């Protein structure tokens, strides 16, 4: 009779953990920010091209779609920044205990939400 061996975790059997959510969102936010560079290039090209081109960019970025993109970019930026800082700290070998990793991941979410709210609703540039 073969002894019972522990089975390796299967892709369908897992529990969501905040650390894993932070890891997945870090990459997703990074991809979103990389795509968002197109908006920054557009802004700079429009500024160099003149008032008409700038007006076109301005009209897009203040439209509902542009506003949602900019809001998402702000959230992605602060999440990626906070979690990136967390990774830099972990690169020094600190914060690897389960409790510390969960706590720092939670802190990153709080930081991202607070900074996004601060930028949009406290220092709102369209008021």
């Amino acid at each position, binding site marked *: 009779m073969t002894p019972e061996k522990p089975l390796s975790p299967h892709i369908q059997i897992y529990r969501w953990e905040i650390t894993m959510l932070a890891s997945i969102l870090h*990459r997703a936010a*990074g*991809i979103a*920010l*990389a795509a968002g*560079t*197109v908006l*920054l*290039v557009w802004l*700079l*090209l429009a*500024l*160099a091209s*003149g*008032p008409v081109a*700038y*007006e076109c960019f*301005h009209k897009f970025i*203040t439209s509902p779609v542009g506003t949602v993109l900019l809001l998402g970019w*702000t959230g992605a*930026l602060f999440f990626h*920044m906070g979690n*990136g*800082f967390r*990774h*830099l700290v972990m*690169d020094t070998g600190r914060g690897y205990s389960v409790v510390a990793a969960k706590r720092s991941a939670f802190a990153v979410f709080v930081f991202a939400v607070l900074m996004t709210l601060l*930028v949009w609703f406290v*220092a709102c*540039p*369209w008021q």
Partner: protein
Amino acid sequence: MSNSPQRILSPLARARGAGSAHHGAGHWLHQRITALANIPLMLWLVWSVVHMQDWNYAAVSLWLAQPINAILMILAVLSTFYHAALGAQVVVEDYIHHPGFKMVKLIGLRLFFIAAAVASVFSILKVAFAG
């Protein structure tokens, strides 16, 4: 670092610090250096956008024409775009498994970010020198 017969790297490859990925720790280190630079640069960019007097063409051009703003914007573009290119490269390496398609994606990404950086730096300089 033992001289056991099992070691895979040639002495030269080991001296260069290049592992199985052939580019050593360069990618890893560049990603961290640009990450550190990105933090103050992006905080500056968001702070500047929030504190912009007005969002019309004249005000934004005048702002970008200031030497300190033009310099910081060039640094921000170079650092974040390089960081984005390094990150996007890892994503492609992780998820695209077809060798030919992977190479096309990697080259395409690199060309895109080089073009984006050149277009951005040229635009910043044009606004800065015209203003």
